[in-house]
């Protein structure tokens, strides 16, 4: 094709047909499914409560206090709140400095900035000296329709190789509230994939308690098993309800609120059965929960097919979050369909 014809094509091509606009809710969108109760800003309230009990607790943010629920702590403990500006490298380094003089910092930003931008600072300022620096990062995985600049689809893949870092992927408000004091009690650094705003609350329907480094069988089931983390545990539990009620299929849900250190023993024991098996993560299938599980199985010499449910290895579309969760297979209905498909 010559340059001339290209120009001609461009000038003669028709404008795209008008399509109805679906409201995208831009940066912040709800992840709550219909009928699931929510708790407002569980992280901010849990941190404020921890701050009441422990004077060493300080809060930092990089110009995102309102969008990471840090504003709740800021209002409760203004003297221990530090707005560091839009300077993530500084924020993480300063948090390490504060930990080095005996404080217990919690620092918030978006996951993309904490991982892509401030990695070297978390690694060398906090992890290498094993300081109690707690990074709490909003918009993990696909929790905004804003596009690749804000979609942290690979945050766990970036961080999993960092020695001495504990990584949490809470499912709901129950997890978030438990993780805050647990993170403060860990001597070294932590990274939490924050769910913020109106956060679904579902784990209190089950016999479940959060424990650092432990995977939990939240819901037993004989027909299929899903190992999940983060908001995908909420989706898996909702899918399990639908599968049971509408299809007579009992799905076991194994929740990994701690991605590192990973509870290989519990997960492998649950997978080493005849049930069709899945992993479900709000993250690219590269370098996250699926590959963590695969490594655990291979290390033990267990040949077991595991079907990964997660985001594709590509830059994702911008758009409305529910549309994107449908498109990329993270919605509750997608999980139901995947499980039924494997059982057919």
């Amino acid at each position: 094709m010559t340059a001339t014809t290209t120009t001609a094509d461009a000038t003669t091509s028709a404008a795209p047909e008008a399509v109805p606009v679906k409201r995208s809710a831009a940066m912040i969108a709800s992840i709550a499914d219909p009928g699931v109760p929510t708790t407002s800003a569980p992280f901010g309230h849990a941190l404020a409560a921890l701050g009441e009990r422990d004077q060493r607790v300080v809060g930092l943010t990089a110009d995102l206090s309102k969008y990471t629920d840090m504003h709740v702590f800021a209002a409760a403990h203004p003297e221990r709140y530090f707005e560091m500006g839009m300077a993530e490298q500084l924020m993480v380094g300063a948090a390490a400095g504060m930990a080095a003089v005996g404080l217990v910092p919690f620092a918030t930003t978006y996951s993309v900035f904490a991982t892509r931008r401030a990695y070297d600072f978390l690694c060398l300022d906090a992890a290498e000296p094993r300081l109690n620096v707690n990074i709490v990062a909003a918009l993990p995985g696909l929790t905004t329709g804003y596009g690749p600049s804000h979609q942290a689809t690979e945050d766990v893949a970036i961080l999993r190789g960092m020695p001495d870092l504990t990584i949490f992927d809470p499912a709901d408000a129950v997890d978030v509230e438990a993780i805050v004091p647990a993170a403060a009690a860990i001597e070294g650094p932590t990274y939490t994939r924050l769910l913020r705003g109106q956060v679904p609350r579902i784990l209190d329907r089950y016999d479940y308690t959060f424990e650092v480094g432990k995977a939990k069988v939240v819901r037993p089931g004989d027909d299929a098993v899903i190992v999940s983390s983060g908001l995908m545990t909420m989706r898996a539990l909702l899918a399990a309800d639908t599968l049971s009620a509408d299809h007579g299929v009992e799905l076991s849900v194994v929740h990994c609120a701690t991605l590192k250190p990973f509870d290989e023993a519990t997960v492998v024991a649950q997978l080493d059965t005849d049930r069709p098996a899945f992993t479900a993560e709000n993250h690219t299938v590269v370098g996250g929960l699926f590959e963590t599980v695969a490594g655990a199985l291979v290390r033990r010499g267990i040949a077991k097919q595991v079907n990964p449910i997660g985001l594709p290895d590509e830059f994702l579309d911008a758009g409305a979050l529910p549309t994107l969760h449908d498109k990329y297979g993270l919605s509750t209905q997608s999980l139901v369909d995947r499980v039924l498909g494997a059982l057919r």
Partner: protein
Amino acid sequence: MTTVEQTRTTIERERHARVAEAAYEIRMGVLEQGEAQGEGYVGQALGIADVLAAVYCDKLRHRADDPEWEGRDRFLLSIGHYALASYAALAAAGVIPREELQTYAADGSRLPMSGMKSYTPGMEISGGSLGHGLGQAVGMALGLRLQGREGQLVYNLLSDGELNEGSTWEAAMSASHWQLGNLVALVDLNGLQADGRTDDVLRLEPQEERWASFGWDVQRVDGNDLEAVLAALDHVTETGAAQGVPKVILCDTRLAKGVPVLEAKDKLHFLRVAAEEWPIAKEQLTAGHREAQS
């Protein structure tokens, strides 16, 4: 001259002589470590020796037998490759045994080539990746102030090459925003970085104006003039945290200062020195020191 003035002059003279002796000890320690490896960042370490002597052997509040003492001032070495200078200073200040310098960069040593908190008593941070020190210093200064310990100063020694890193300027902005009068930046301006002269790699001047525009109290001194360095540090400790302004001392230093045989070399960023040259280097150092003292 009154008796009081005479006494003051005598005290100052003694202080100067003591710090000059420490600088000589630090330089000799640097050469011993360099000789043990046959190479290293010896030029920078010799250049910064006077500043380190003034800090470690005159200004820094610390306890040699208790490096983790809570009431200490903090000295953060963000330029990890200057570690041999810090080790020699820690030896001169009595924090580590002088004989240990012989283990520099050896397998199993507490003194790795790049300075790290997890290896060495008295090292406050793990440096090496440049542009990290000043941000951590901001956090320490904020943290100490929050705990009512603003009287404890936080020093960060950084290099001119490190001024290439954007994170250094994030921290510089933050320090004045938070009015961190307990924060002191010492910048080694030796004019050389890995790829060449700093002027050619990424222009840094005008340094005084840049720091001043970021809201810092700025002094620029000849970093190899002990009297000037001590006077600049005196200004820093006399004002202390009171005015709420972070302070920077820009120190122009000469690479390999005090050892003519090394000063004359071309590749001063990372020196490789023949085995037979080390004894000459030490003799020159000692001769120069004796001459200055006489």
